[in-house]
């Protein structure tokens, strides 16, 4: 770990990624922000690493499941308040 954090993620592009670096690039990859050699290096690592492939799949699944979360119900009181607010605004006219 010490070695890796010292070396940093920008370490020589010629060298392959290790898993600990690859997992930190997952969001950049999904955001389309890994370009050219960086992206090829990441994809090359994935192609040879079932664990990081699994990790990427888990992040994708996490995103998909997060999309199912409903952010909370409207309480009856809030519904009443906001309907009142609408009617007052209408009267402002």
């Amino acid at each position, binding site marked *: 770990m010490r*070695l890796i954090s010292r070396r940093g993620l920008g370490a020589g592009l010629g060298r392959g990624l*290790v898993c600990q670096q690859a997992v*930190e690039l997952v969001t950049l990859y999904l955001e389309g922000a890994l370009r050219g050699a960086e992206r090829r290096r990441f994809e090359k690592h994935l192609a040879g690493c079932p*664990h990081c492939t699994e990790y990427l799949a888990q992040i994708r699944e996490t995103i998909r499941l997060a999309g199912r979360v409903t952010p909370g119900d409207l309480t009856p009181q*809030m519904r009443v308040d906001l309907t009142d607010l609408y*009617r007052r605004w209408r009267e402002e006219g």
Partner: protein
Amino acid sequence: MSSPWACAVPDLREDRLRTVVVWPPQPGRAVSDTLPAMEPDEELLRRLRAGDEQAFVALVERYNGSMLRLALSFVPSRAVAEEVVQDTWLAVLRGLAGFEGRSSLRTWMFTILANRARTTGARELRSIPVADAGPVVDASRFGPDGSWSVPPEHWVEEAEERIEAGKLTGLLRSAMDSLPARQREVVLLRDVEGLTSTEVCSVLAISEANQRVLLHRGRGKLRQVLEAELGGSR
């Protein structure tokens, strides 16, 4: 308004920027996935402008929850957050006539909310996200050469078989609530509401780079929570 955050107007170039190709394609985030058979915002906007109260109620039902959660990350209490959200709805109604549709309706509404919540919360300059720059996977999971020593267990296709859907979303909802405020804001807008990264940057007045860091940390923590629940002993 003197707050430096109060001038976050949606970027005029947003529509153009939104066409930037994202590769690989986003997994399973088709709108139809999360918003089954809902009337588009544009249609609600049209009805609202025509004076249809039900359109307002529908809009409130769609967005009030996320607005409240977003407001809560800026202000100290639920009561204050509810006030900010009500103020925002009033500002939305009053601003309808002047809304030109240069950003999407929800981006416009979330921007109004974020600006108000920020002003109300008077939160001191928000901490730099790098302050929370721990690894997204605990270092103990890797060997000295940086490869997995405790690799992730497989659970992806099994999640929904092993946990009832309501429990799964409840788990994620409380995991989101316990994220640091800025990560929570980004995850809420990106992954729950489905805004684009450009929209999120505009609403929260943060850079693309910051947005990515926050999203990375936030998603990483949500994954950990799922793994703890689904991945056996870890």
